[in-house]
Every structure is written in structure tokens, then in C-alpha cells.
């Protein structure tokens, strides 16, 4: 067999169920209860409105820099929707609406992006990791959590999110490889939103898809229309089931788009055209899902309005709560909290130093 083709498993599917016009592929339509469909819908709307409100607050200087999620609601909710309470949630930094779905209180975002450490507040019964800024690095934590889950003979899974840019990092590679070798219950969710700040996907990799990268690690990858919540949901369902059954990891590439700036500190006009953005606006994940729910008689114009109203009230409550909290919180001495399980002597000294400085300042004022 001198020069022969090696038969390598190199199958990558593309999945789309709800097209851009909101028309569903009946054969592939997932079986989701009406209530759950509406829950997802509400969460999508909440994510969108909250993003808009945050942007507004940021522009008014009431909060600091944050990364908007608009356009990525389906990718986030279609995946996170499968997690049980005991599953492990391992986000990157742009999973705001997935975090809310997992129970993170909305006011904590406002605290966090106003520079309060208290903006991270995870209850003991929540298996949610705090957001992770170093691109790609958190994927390895998901691998370790999944390893521990299996070691403890549970059927929980770990799901981790990251961007297209993250696939270039060594950490991503090592996480994928370990997950493959140990056949761990991890789901790698790539939100391919086409851009890593100013770098387009074409400059990020020469690979045709990101999903196919999974093949290098001996496990399945699938590409889905990331603005189609039904497709995302279906692919994630398969992946989670496989993971729970002990059949190892999956990578899901959600093809979506970052509709806004990278963060509020970024100006995308420097590097991409308005036409490109407008083209993607037509593929909006919420509009088409709305159409689907209307067609299913689960939604009508009045209901849409009331969801919007409800969501806006929730947001207003969160903003009010955050502003109140900001007045109460922020004792500088708290910066020494949680440095270690127990504050070591030299930090007691440093804390006392700061306390003294603060006291003196108070005196003077």
C-alpha cells in the first residue's frame, strides 16, 4: 500500500433549522415545550435590552468599559439552556445573557463594570465560574472540572464558551487535546462572531471551518447557524447527551456576528464596513425566533410588548438596586478580602497601613 489515502474521520455537519426569514425546517424542529420556548425568548429579549441599557449607562459615564453581546443571544441561550444546576458553567467574558440564565443577578453586572469587586457574587449552590478575561484560558478549567466530575462518578457536564479568536491560543489546543485524550464530558462552544477585536476570521486561521478543528483531537465538531436558536439548541442537546453518556467532548461552532463594538472602548468603524454589519442585521436571532413563535401561536404583538415591558422593568430594578448598592459598598479595606483563605501576617500589616491612612484622611476631612 505504497501511496494510499488514510481513512480519517473527517465529518463536519452544518446545521440550520430556522432560516433567516423565520421559516422552520419541520423535519429537524426540536421538541421543546411551549413554556421553555417562551423562557428562551424572554431571556433573549432581556439580553438584548440589557445590552442596550448598559451601553446607554456606559455612554453616560455611569459604568465603565464592557463587551456588548447583541447578536449572540441565540448562540448563548441555545447552549446554556441544556445545563442543569449542578453542571459547570465556564464562560469567557462575553456571555452576559448566558450568565443571567445561570442565575447571575443583573445588578452584579453593573457593579462589576463599575469597578466593584462585589460585582462577582456566586452563591454556594451555583456552579458558575466567574467570567474570564484571558482569551481561551478558561477552556482548561472546564477540562479540569469535567475530569473531577467523572472522577466523582457524576453525570454532570462542563460547558465552556469562547470566541473565534480564542481558537488561535495554545490554551484552546491543549484543552481540546486533553478533553479528547481523557474523553471528558466537556462541551466547547465557540461563538464565531467573525471578529476578534479588529481581526477578521480570515486572518485568524486558514481552516475552512472552526468546527473541523475538533477532528485534530479525535472528537466531533459541528457547525451551526449561531443566530438560529433551534439549531444551536439541537446541536447542544446532542453534545450534552453524548457527554452525559460518557461519550466524550464535542465542539460546537456557532456562526454568528458581533453586531456592536468589541467593547465600549473600541471603534469598529476603523476596521469594518457598515454594509457588512447591515448584512448581518437581517439575520438577527431574535426577529426570526419571534416569527417562529408567532407562527406557532405562542406569541402575538401584545405579548411581545408585554415581554418587553416586563424585561424593561426588571432592568430598571437592577439599575436601581445597583445604584443603591454602590453607595453602600466599596470599603477600600475590602480589597484585602479573599487574597488567601486566611490573611497572612504581612497582609495584616498592609491592611492596617491602609486603615490608618484612611482614618487619617477622614480626620482631616
Amino acid at each position, binding site marked *: 500500500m505504497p501511496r494510499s489515502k488514510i481513512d480519517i474521520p473527517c465529518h463536519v455537519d452544518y446545521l440550520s433549522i430556522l432560516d433567516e426569514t423565520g421559516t422552520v425546517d419541520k423535519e429537524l424542529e426540536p421538541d421543546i415545550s411551549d413554556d421553555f420556548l417562551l423562557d428562551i425568548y424572554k431571556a433573549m429579549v432581556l439580553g438584548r435590552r440589557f445590552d442596550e441599557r448598559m451601553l446607554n449607562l456606559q455612554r453616560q459615564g455611569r459604568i465603565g468599559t464592557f463587551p456588548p453581546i447583541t447578536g449572540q443571544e441565540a448562540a448563548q441561550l441555545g447552549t446554556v439552556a441544556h445545563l442543569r444546576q449542578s453542571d459547570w458553567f465556564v464562560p469567557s467574558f462575553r456571555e452576559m445573557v448566558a450568565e443571567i440564565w445561570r442565575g447571575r443577578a443583573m445588578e452584579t453586572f453593573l457593579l462589576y463594570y463599575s469597578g466593584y469587586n462585589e460585582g462577582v457574587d456566586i452563591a454556594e449552590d451555583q456552579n458558575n465560574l466567574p467570567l474570564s*478575561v484571558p482569551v481561551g484560558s478558561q477552556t482548561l478549567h472546564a477540562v479540569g472540572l469535567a475530569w473531577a466530575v467523572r472522577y466523582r462518578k457524576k453525570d454532570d457536564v462542563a460547558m465552556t464558551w469562547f470566541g473565534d*479568536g480564542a481558537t488561535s491560543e495554545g490554551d484552546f489546543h491543549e484543552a481540546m487535546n486533553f478533553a479528547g485524550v481523557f474523553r471528558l464530558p466537556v462541551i466547547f462552544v465557540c461563538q464565531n462572531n467573525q471578529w476578534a*477585536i479588529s481581526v477578521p476570521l480570515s486572518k485568524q486561521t486558514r481552516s475552512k471551518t472552526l468546527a473541523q478543528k475538533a477532528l485534530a483531537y479525535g472528537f466531533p465538531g459541528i457547525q451551526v447557524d449561531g443566530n438560529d436558536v433551534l439549531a444551536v439548541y439541537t446541536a447542544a442537546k446532542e453534545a450534552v447527551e453524548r457527554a452525559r453518556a460518557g461519550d466524550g467532548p464535542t465542539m460546537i461552532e456557532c456562526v454568528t456576528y458581533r453586531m456592536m463594538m468589541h467593547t465600549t472602548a473600541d471603534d469598529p468603524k476603523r476596521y469594518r464596513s457598515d454594509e457588512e454589519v447591515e448584512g448581518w442585521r437581517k439575520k438577527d436571532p431574535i426577529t426570526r425566533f419571534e416569527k417562529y413563535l408567532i407562527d406557532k401561536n405562542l406569541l402575538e404583538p401584545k405579548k411581545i410588548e408585554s415581554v418587553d415591558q416586563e424585561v424593561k422593568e426588571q432592568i430598571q430594578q437592577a439599575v436601581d438596586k445597583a445604584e443603591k448598592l454602590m453607595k453602600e459598598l466599596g470599603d477600600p479595606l475590602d480589597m484585602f478580602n479573599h487574597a488567601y483563605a486566611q490573611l497572612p501576617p504581612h*497582609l495584616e500589616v498592609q491592611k492596617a497601613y491602609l486603615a490608618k491612612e484612611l482614618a487619617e484622611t477622614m480626620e482631616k476631612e
Partner: protein
Amino acid sequence: MPKLTMVQALNMALKQEMEKDDAVIVLGEDVGLDGGVFRVTDQLYQQFGENRVVDTPLAETAIVGMSIGMAIYGLKPVCEIQFSGFSYQNFHQIENHASRMRWRSQGRFGVPMVLRTPYGGGVRALEHHSESREAFWSHMPGLKMVIPSGPRNARALLVSAIRDPDPVIFYEAKALYRAFREEVPEEEETMPIGKSQIAREGNDLTMISYGAMTRPTMEAASELAEKDGVEAEVVDLLTLSPLDDDLFTESVKKTGKAMIIHEAPMSYGPGAEILARLVEKSFYYLEVPVERVTGFDIIIPLFNRENHYIPSVKRILRTARKMMDGMK
């Protein structure tokens, strides 16, 4: 002379060096069309094209590893690591290779690269965007570690760094990027790497600082002069490694008192080495213990509290006054 911000001055240095020498290549994340997230590489892509100003995939190790290869070839790569908080991703390429390729190859291959990266707090940024870990690099044999304190010396030192035959880690204080303007000559200007400077003369107390902390230190010195009649001498280190210990020890021989100011955590921080040199070279001149005014040994808090972490003018003054009072 145009009055430039530090961002503009750094940009000028890159532009002029690139015009002079086609071996100078800029690379990193978002350095191209976007001009860098802080705009230090603004318009370079437009002027020099994508072969000179290279937008790379998102991978710090590769940015540095590739720079090493380019430098071995004889190019002069100037790579940008978007925030120093992400320069640990490439730590091994610097420790294992950049800093020792000349030594390992017994002189055959130098690595004339510059790693530029913004460091430090004070710009209300997210986690990992405000750290000062210059001590790591300063402790690595084979490297040079440079930290300018204003537009003019930033420009001159960057030019020198680019021309230096050895790898230079170049820390740019984010807090200084747009904090003030200085006259920066259009004509070529360099400054020697490995030399500190006296930023203010005085006979009563030596204040040693660098980078972003030079400003509050200078302010404190002014206030001391005005309100306390104390004339502090301020030493701006500019290079942390190799450390110019002549200048500050000479100063201390004159004043008898020294304090060191930096943002980095105190323990095992740059101040420790400066203090050690003071003891080794001017022990018998020290009238009181050397004092360190630094960041605490904790992660710098999110921005709401960071001004209580970073040494302030007030904190510097408090220590300076304690030292002077101790003398009465």
C-alpha cells in the same frame, strides 16, 4: 517642536525608525488597521502596508516566538502585547529563548527584538489590565527592561530599544499615554538604555521612582518643597535592568535618606533590589531606613478601589514626612 502625548511620541518613534530601516517590523494583535487598542501604531499600516505592520492571530506565544525567529534572521521586530497582563502567555518564549539565544548560540544569533506592552493602573480598566509586574522581566538575565516616564523619553528610549542588539522589554504606562504632552523634537533623539536621570534636584531626601509613578513622586516633591521646605531629589530610573545604581547611590550619599515608589506589589518587587543596592553601595550614608511606598501584596482591585491601591501623592508625602520627622 510639536507637543505630543506619549502615544503620539511612541508612534513617532516607530514611524521614523520604520522609515529609516526596513528591518523594523511591527506585529501584534490589532496593530494594523486598528492602529493598536491604544493607537500607538496608528496609521503605520496605512503608510507601510501589511508586510511591515502585521496583524497576527490571537496568540501571544506565537507573536513572541515568531519575533524571535524574525530577529534571528536579522530583522528588528517590535511586537506589541496588548496588555502586560497577557504577556505571561509568552513568558516561556522570553525565558527559554529570547533572553538566551545569543548565549546559547555562543554569539551566533542575537535577538534584537522589542516587546512593547502597556502596564499599570489608573485607567479604569478590566481585570488583568492594570498590573505592574516589571520585576519578573528585571530578574531575567539576558533581557533589558525599560520603562519611560513621559513622551520625550519614551520616544528616545523606544528608538534606542529598537536599535539595541538585545531583547528589550518596553513597559508603557497606560496612565501616561494621554496624561500630558511634551515637546518632542522631530529630529532623531535617542537615550542610552541602562541610564537613569535626575528628574529634580535636591539635598534633603532621595525619591526613586520610574514610569507612571514618577509623576506623583514629582508632585509630592514639589509639595514638600512648598509646604515643608524639604528639597527632595527625584531619580527617574528609566531602565530597571541593567540597573543604573550609580546615580541613585550618589544621590543618597548626598541626602542620607531614600524612599522608593512603585505600583508593583511590595514583596519581591523592584524596590527590594533598589534598596539592596543602596545598602550595598551607600550603607554608611543612610541615616534612616530606606522606605518603600508601593502597591500592596494583593491583586490590584477592580477600578473602583484602585486609587487606594496605587501609591498616591498623599501616601508618598506621608512617608516622606515620616522620614523627615524622624530626623528632627
